[in-house]
C-alpha cells in the first residue's frame, strides 16, 4: 500500500446519509476497506470504513453513526490505509483504548512497525500442533479439559456466573510445568462494565504481572464500532509478541457476546439479510478470523493461546454466539448454574466442557502416564452417577442396587472434592489425579474398565 500520499484525497460530495452509511460520489484511487475520517460541520471527526467502492459511488460505514452529518458541510478524508497498530517491545505494560490510543497516561508508542489489525492467515502447513500442557492449577481443567499452548479455549458462561474469577485464577496460576519462560498476557475488554475491566487490571497489578501485560479496553460506554477493533488490536499485539519477540502469549477476550452484538448491530445498519437470531450469516467466518490467530508456528519460539469469554444469552448453549464459537474453538469450558447453586466453585460442567487438544498434552513426559485413563474413567464414573441421580429423583435412591448407590455417592464426591476448590488454591496435576484415584477407590476394581491394570496396581489407594 502507498505509504506517502502525494495529494489529499478528500471530498464533500456526500449524496446520502442513512443509518450508519454514507453514499459518496467516488473519487479516483479509493481502496476497498480503507479507513476514512469524516469531518462534521460541527468540527467533530469520526472514523469510517469503505465497505463498497464503485466507479460512481462509494459506500462508507461511519463508526458512531451519521447523526449530525449534513450533506453540505461534512467532508470525507480517505486515509489510504486499513486500521494499523503501532508496535514495539514498549507496548508491554501499556493500556490502550479500542482504537489503539494509549489511555494510561504514558507516552505514545514509538513504532518499530505498523501492523494491519486483521493479521494474515498462517499457512496450515507451517503450523505445529499445540502440545505443551499448561498447568492452571484447576482440577476440572488440568484433569479433564487440559489447556495447551497455542489452543483457543473459550469459557462459556452465563450472567452472574464467576467467569471473571476463573479467568483471573487462570491468569494468576497458569504455568508450564518446571519451566519459567518468556510469557505475556494480552487482555481485551470488549463492551464490558468499567468494574469488570478494572477487576482484571487490579488482579494483574496484585500479582505483579502488569508489566508483562497489555490491555485494550473498550467499556460499555465506549463506541460500539470499536468492539470490533478491540479484539483485533489485542490479537495483533499478541502475534507481534509471539512471532517477532518469541514470547508465549495468553490472550483473554471478554466478552465475545458484546462483540457479536456489535457485529449484528452494524450488519443491520447496512441492511444485510440476517441469519439465525439476526446475526449475520458470515459470523462464523468473522469469529474464525480472530480465533484462528491462536497457534504455534514450526521453527518459532512463541505461541498465541486464546481464552475468549462469552456469556450465553439465557444460558443457551445452542445460541449462535456459543454455537459458532464452539464450532471454531478447540473445545470449551462451560459453567453451570446448577453447580453454582450448589455453591461449587469453580462451577465447571465437565460434561459440556471439552478440550480437543488434550490428547497431545497429557501422558508420560507431559503430565503423568495414567492421565488419559484417569480422564476417561472419571467421565464414565461421573456420568453413571449423574444418570442414577436423575432416575433416583423419580424412583428414590432406596430403589437402587448397592452398586448403583456407590456410583451415586462417587458422583457427589466428585463434585465436592474434585471439581470444587478454592479460588486461591493451586493444585498440581499429581494432586488432581490423586483426588480422582481416591474416588475410584470407592468402586469395585473390576469396574475400572478404562484403566490399564498396571496403573491400577500402581496408583489405586486401598479402599477407605
Amino acid at each position, binding site marked *: *500500500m502507498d505509504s506517502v500520499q502525494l495529494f489529499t484525497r478528500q471530498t464533500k460530495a456526500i449524496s446520502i446519509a442513512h443509518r450508519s452509511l454514507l453514499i459518496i460520489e*467516488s473519487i*479516483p484511487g*479509493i*481502496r*476497498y*476497506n480503507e479507513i476514512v475520517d469524516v469531518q462534521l460541520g460541527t468540527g467533530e471527526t469520526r472514523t469510517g470504513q469503505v465497505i*463498497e*467502492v*464503485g*466507479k460512481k459511488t462509494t459506500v462508507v460505514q461511519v463508526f458512531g453513526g451519521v447523526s449530525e452529518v449534513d450533506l453540505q458541510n461534512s467532508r470525507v478524508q480517505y486515509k489510504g490505509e*486499513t486500521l494499523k497498530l503501532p508496535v514495539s517491545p514498549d507496548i508491554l505494560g501499556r493500556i490502550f483504548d479500542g482504537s489503539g490510543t494509549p489511555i494510561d497516561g504514558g507516552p505514545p508508542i514509538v513504532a518499530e512497525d505498523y501492523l494491519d489489525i486483521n493479521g*494474515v*492467515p*498462517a*499457512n*496450515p*502447513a*507451517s*503450523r505445529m*500442533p*499445540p502440545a505443551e500442557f499448561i498447568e492452571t492449577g484447576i482440577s476440572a481443567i488440568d484433569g479433564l479439559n487440559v489447556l495447551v499452548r*497455542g489452543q483457543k479455549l473459550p469459557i462459556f458462561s452465563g450472567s452472574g456466573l464467576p467467569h471473571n474469577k476463573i479467568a483471573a485464577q487462570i491468569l494468576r496460576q497458569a504455568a508450564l510445568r518446571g519451566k519459567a519462560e518468556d510469557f505475556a498476557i494480552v487482555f481485551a475488554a470488549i463492551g464490558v462494565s468499567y468494574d469488570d475491566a478494572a477487576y482484571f487490571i487490579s488482579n494483574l497489578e496484585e500479582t505483579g504481572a502488569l508489566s508483562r501485560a497489555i490491555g485494550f479496553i473498550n467499556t460499555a460506554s465506549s463506541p460500539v464500532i470499536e468492539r470490533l477493533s478491540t479484539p483485533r488490536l489485542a490479537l495483533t499485539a499478541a502475534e507481534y509478541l509471539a512471532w517477532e519477540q518469541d514470547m508465549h502469549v495468553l490472550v483473554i477476550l471478554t466478552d465475545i457476546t458484546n462483540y457479536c452484538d456489535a457485529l449484528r448491530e452494524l450488519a443491520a445498519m447496512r441492511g*444485510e*439479510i440476517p*441469519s*439465525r437470531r439476526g446475526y449475520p*450469516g*458470515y459470523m*462464523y*467466518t468473522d469469529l*474464525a478470523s480472530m480465533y*484462528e490467530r491462536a*497457534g504455534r508456528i*514450526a*521453527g*518459532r519460539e512463541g505461541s498465541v493461546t486464546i481464552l475468549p469469554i462469552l456469556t450465553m444469552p439465557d444460558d443457551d448453549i*445452542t445460541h*449462535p454466539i456459543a*454455537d*459458532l464459537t*464452539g*464450532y471454531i474453538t*478447540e473445545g*470449551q469450558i462451560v459453567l453451570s448454574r446448577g453447580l453454582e447453586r450448589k455453591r461449587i466453585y469453580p462451577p465447571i460442567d465437565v460434561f459440556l466442557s471439552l478440550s*480437543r487438544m488434550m490428547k*497431545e498434552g497429557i501422558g508420560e513426559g507431559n503430565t503423568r502416564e495414567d492421565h488419559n485413563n484417569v480422564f*476417561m474413567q472419571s*467421565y*464414565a464414573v461421573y*456420568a453413571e452417577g449423574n444418570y442414577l441421580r436423575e*432416575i433416583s429423583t*423419580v*424412583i428414590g435412591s432406596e*430403589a*437402587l*442396587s448397592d452398586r448403583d448407590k456407590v456410583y451415586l455417592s462417587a458422583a457427589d464426591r466428585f463434585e465436592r472434592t474434585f471439581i470444587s476448590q478454592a479460588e486461591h488454591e493451586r493444585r498440581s496435576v499429581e494432586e488432581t489425579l490423586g483426588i480422582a484415584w481416591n474416588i475410584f477407590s470407592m468402586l469395585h476394581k*473390576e469396574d475400572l*474398565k478404562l484403566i*490399564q491394570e498396571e496403573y491400577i496396581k500402581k496408583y489405586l489407594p486401598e479402599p477407605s
Partner: protein
Amino acid sequence: MAITGRIWRVSGPVVIADDMRGSQVYEVVDVGEQRLTGEIIALEGDKAVIQVYEDTVGLRVGEPVVGTGEILMVELGPGMVGNIYDGVQRSLITMMDDIGDFLTRGARTHALDREKKWHFTPTVKAGDVVEEGDIIGTVPETGLIEHKVMVPIGLQGTIRNISEGDFTVEETIAILDHKGKESPLKLMQRWPARKPRIYKQRFFPEDLLVTGTRIIDYLFPLALGGKAAIPGGFGTGKTVNLQQMARWSQTHLNIYVGCGERGNEMADVLYSFKKLRDPATDRLLQEKEIFIANTSNMPVVAREISIYLGITMAEYFRDMGYDVLLVADSTSRWAEAMREIGARLEETPGEEGFPTYLGSRLASFYERSGRVTCMGRPERMGSATVIGSVSPPGADFSEPVTQSTLRIIDALYSLDVALANRRHFPTISWLQSYSMYADSVDKWWNRISKDYTDVRNRTLIILQNEADLEEIVRLVGPEALPEDDKLLLLVARMIREDFLMQSAYHPVDTYSPPERSHKMLSTIIRFYDVAKEMAESGMLVSEIAQSKLIPRISRMKDIPHDQIDDYVNSLRTDMDKGLIAEEGGI
C-alpha cells in the same frame, strides 16, 4: 490476446469489472495490481462479475483485470500424493518455501513441481492404437501409488514415439497421431475443476469399505463407491471420525478436504500422517493421501472451489482403477461460502439465506461418487467414495444443509451430543444411523463369517430393546425390572462399552479389522446366550453380573491384533464350560 478490463466495483470477495467483452463464464482472471486470482461467475454486457479467491482489501476502482482465456483447471499428474493444497490448488508446501509462514496475497505456485523428474515406464509401444482413457504407462509416485498415465479424455490415435525414461510433468513422453494431427502426451493433464470426469458404466456399490471403526463396518457398513454423511453438533466427533477413516480405510488413496475448519486440526493431521503407518502395507500414510486445506480464516471463495478440486482428484485416481475415499470436513462451511457469495450477488435467498441451488449443488457433489468401469483399456473398475461432515447450527438437524444432504446420501452416521457429553466415542448413534449398503455388503461379510448377518441383526434388536426399556427404567428404576430385561440391559451395556466404544487414541483399538470386530461382537452375543441359559436355570442377573468373564470381555479391546485369536478362543472355551456359575462367586 488477453482481455484486459478495469475494476468497476468491489464488494467483499465479489468484484465487477468493465471492458470485459469477449470473456467467458468461469474464466480465470488476474485481479488488480497484485494479480489476485479470480473467476468470472457471470457476464452482463461488457461487465464481468468475478469472485476473487483472495482477500480483496485495498483493491481500487480502475485497477486492471486481465483474462487468462482459460477456465479454472485442475492439474493432474504425479506429485499430488502427499502434497497439501489450498482451495485453488496452490501447494502450501511450496508457498511455505516461497513466501514464508503466512499467506500473503498474490502468491502463485504450480500445483505440480515443474522440475522434478519422474520415471516413466510405457505399457504400450509405438504403433499401438489408443483411445481416451487408455493406460499408456506408469510412474511410481510413492511407495503405495503407482501413477497410471492415461490418454487424456478427448484424444485418440496411433502412438508414435514412446520410451522409458525420466521426465518432468511437462516434457513429452509420447506423440499421438490422429489422422496426421499430432498431439504430444505428457505426464500431466488438466481438467476443468467443476466438471465431472466421465466413465463407462456405473454399478451399485457392494464391497465393504473397511474403515476400522467397528460401529461403521459392522452395523452401518459403507461400500466402496458409496456416499455418506456425518452430521453432528460441535465437538461430537465429526473431524475425528473423518480423520480415522482417512487413516485406516483399506482404500488405495484418500483425499482429506479441510473446508473452512481449523488450522491446528490440519496441522495435527499433517503431522500424524507423517508418522503413522498403513496397517495393510506398513508404509507411511502420507504415501496414500492428498490434503486440501482451506481453513476458516482463509478466503471464503476458495472454500467453495476446494470441494470441486478434491472430487476431481478423486475421480482422476478412480479412473486409474483405484478405490479412492474423499472426506470433506465440513460441507456446511462449503454451503456457507455459497451463501456468502450469493448474498454479495444479491441473489434471492432460499431457506435460512442459503441460495436456492444449495440442494442441487450438494447433490451434484455427492453424485460424483460411485463404483464404475473406467474409460479406456485395460478394462478396469475404480471407485470414489465420498463422506461429508455436516455442522448443523445448534445441532438442530432440521436445518437446510442437513436436510438437503439426507435426501442424497445412502449412509448416515448421525452423531449424538448426549453421547459426546458422557464421552462415549465414537458418538455415532446406533438408533438414528443407517446404511443402505448393509444388504449389498452382506455377501462380503459372509466371507468373513457366516454368522455375520445374524449377529448384526441380534445386536441391533438388543440395542433397540434397551432404548425401549430405558423409558421404563426412568419410571420404576432398574431393580424393578424382570430378570430377562435386566439381563438384556447388562448385555446391551456390554455391547455399548466393550464393542461400540472405540477410542481413536487407543494404540491398538484405534483400528479394528473386520475379523477382530466380528470376534469381539460374537463373543458378547455368545455370552448372552450362555447367560440366558443360566438365568433360566435360576441364576440371578446380579450374580451373572459378577462373572469374571465380563472384565475379560471388556479387556478384548486392549489385546494386540496378533494375540486376539488366542485370547478370544480361551475366553470362549471358558464360557462354554459355563464358568459363569463357578467363577461367579461374589
